[in-house]
């Protein structure tokens, strides 16, 4: 008990009335300016900081199904057909019951999600799953299946010609 009392006294003497040094004057806060022209570009190109999510997607990337139309083939064909993507990145496939998915975005912020499935039947079932379960999340989504690949085009109501070109390209592969 005596030790405790002595230590307490030492600590009190050491810290008595000691307010922390005042913080340096803050830098002027950045004022909100007009939005940068980042349409079509996702908020993050690097998801490594998202804990368990990157390993899940790495696993999905390592176990892709052999499909007639890999997502890269579709995106290459779209680029050749004049549908330029401002960004593209992998997204979680299990959300769509798929083996592997990528999300491409045009500069007009049209979403083109492409997912690979183990079979044609699985892709058709995936289309049904997305149509029913996520209808309220993306109400304007339009989907098509070719072989065992599923394509979703969303946010394209203002650009129907682009949407049509995506599906024409996809079906021609």
């Amino acid at each position, binding site marked *: *008990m005596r*030790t*405790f009392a002595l*230590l*307490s006294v*030492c*600590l*009190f*003497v*050491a*810290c*008595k*009335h*000691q*307010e922390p*040094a005042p*913080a340096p004057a*803050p830098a*002027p*806060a*950045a*004022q*909100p300016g*007009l*939005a*940068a022209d*980042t*349409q*079509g*570009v*996702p*908020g993050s190109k690097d*998801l490594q*900081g*998202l804990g368990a*999510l990157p390993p899940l*997607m790495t696993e999905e990337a390592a176990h892709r199904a052999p499909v007639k139309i890999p997502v890269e083939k579709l995106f290459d064909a779209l680029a050749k057909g004049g549908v330029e993507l401002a960004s593209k990145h992998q*997204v*979680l496939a*299990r*959300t*769509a*019951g798929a083996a592997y*998915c990528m*999300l491409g*975005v045009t500069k007009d*912020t049209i*979403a083109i*999600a492409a997912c690979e499935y183990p079979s044609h039947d699985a892709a058709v*079932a995936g289309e049904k*799953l997305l149509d029913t*379960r*996520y*209808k*309220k*999340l*993306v109400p304007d*989504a339009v989907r098509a299946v070719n072989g065992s690949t599923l394509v*979703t085009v*969303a946010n394209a109501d203002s650009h129907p010609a682009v949407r049509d070109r995506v599906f024409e390209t996809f079906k021609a592969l």
Partner: protein
Amino acid sequence: MKLRDCWIGGAVALAATLLAPNIVSASSHREAPFITKMPKVDGTDFYMFNSYETGRAGYVTILANYVPLQPKYGGPNYFTLDPDALYEIHVDNNGDGVEDLTFQFDFDQKLGNNGSGIALNIGGTNVAIPLAAAGPLANVTEPAQNIIETYTLGVVRGPRRGSAPTLVTNIGDGTTTFHKPFDDAGQKTVADYPTYANKFIANFDIPGCTPTGVGAGTHSRVFVGQRQEGFAVNLGQVFDLVNFNVSALGVNAPVAGEADLTGAQDQGKNVTADQNITTLAIEVPASCLTKDASSPVIASWTTASVRQARVLNPTATFDNPSREGGPWVQVSRLGSPLVNEIVIGLPDKDKFNGSEPKNDAQFAAYVTNPTFPALIEAVFGATGMLAPTTFPRADLIAAFLNGVPGVNVTGSTLYEALRLNTAVPATAQASQSSLGAATCFATPVDNAHGPALALSQAGCDPAGYPNGRRPGDDVVDIELRVAMGFLLDQNHAPIRAAPLVDGAEVDANKLQAVFPYLNNPTPGNEGT
């Protein structure tokens, strides 16, 4: 003496403590941020709204919740507040991010039987009992109560450490002491908890303020005590990487138990429904909080602070388990809901807890370039959904750092706090929308013009979050939608209109409509 010297002194003292014989050293193996080690000073929710209890127009109610996730059973010690901490509610009424008025709660606790503890004569020897209550409790002071908590309520004008607080007077007994009710151990200890708890609501007047706009003969009120947790959230799935209907690896029906991100607001997912909380509640005239009648917007936040140094007593007693000294160090801070949970990055969460709003520029990037929407897009991108693609997120600056134009802007200084326009009339409880003032925005034409306020819009309830926050506001659903671009135009936020939910219900009509507004706690014996 410099701060570093204090640390050296503390380190030497603590090292000596560890090396000294017969002294117990404690350790913690948890890797969570610092505040998880100090639940008694962990602020969990903060509410501020124009009072909607009948006859209380002109008053503002402020609720600060502490001691998170209290199970309904909690004996034998239950959930006392920290008598060595300082709990504060700050109000800024001129938009500079510095408090102009602070309410300080300073708690004390002692054993019953005049501080010696209730004892029983066992075979001729008086032996102290191990329980916190020795019999039924029905009144503010009871001989059967074995742990008694009291507090003072001080008011500081200007910077919180700039002057000593002026203690307010408990109008009920003329003292400066207020009592905190015993937690709801169960009906055998407190037969009628609502009646019992209401006896601890005390009247006071704010020193130096003559209120206007309130009913004649009415006073400010204060209550501190256990309440049922009012914050509804699907905690488990939200923090499991937003694990909403995504775990099905096949194409079957949604896995049982998963929340539907666009389903009903109430999917039975409120994991905190039977938890309790400790609420610090005050109800004070708006005219005593605002700068003047022409400046009705106030910003507020709560903090908890502890002394910088603590030395554990190796021969602890009830009154003297440790010794604290040094300046106050703020360890908890809370204004708008969920900011430190889903906006501030993990490396800075404890820094945020220790920070003051006037220095919030250091956290601006977390708001202007948020990570949460990127997570949502990574999880749900296969559906074709997109996160907002505009940076910096001026809409989030308005929602969190500056106030919504036309509603509760506090000025040009950007800082995080809960903002309230005290001139917006309260909405009666039965008419409140759980989506609060989020119901008052139309689709923006473009981002350059900011959020499109439409107060005449059908269903608009401007008296709710983010114009203050009421217990019945579903802030999780509101913030989910705002994070995904509800205040942006369609070009920059394609799913801005999606009815996102976490599946945990919040309904104002299931909460009490009178001060302190949060329901009575779930009794400790219920279901056990």
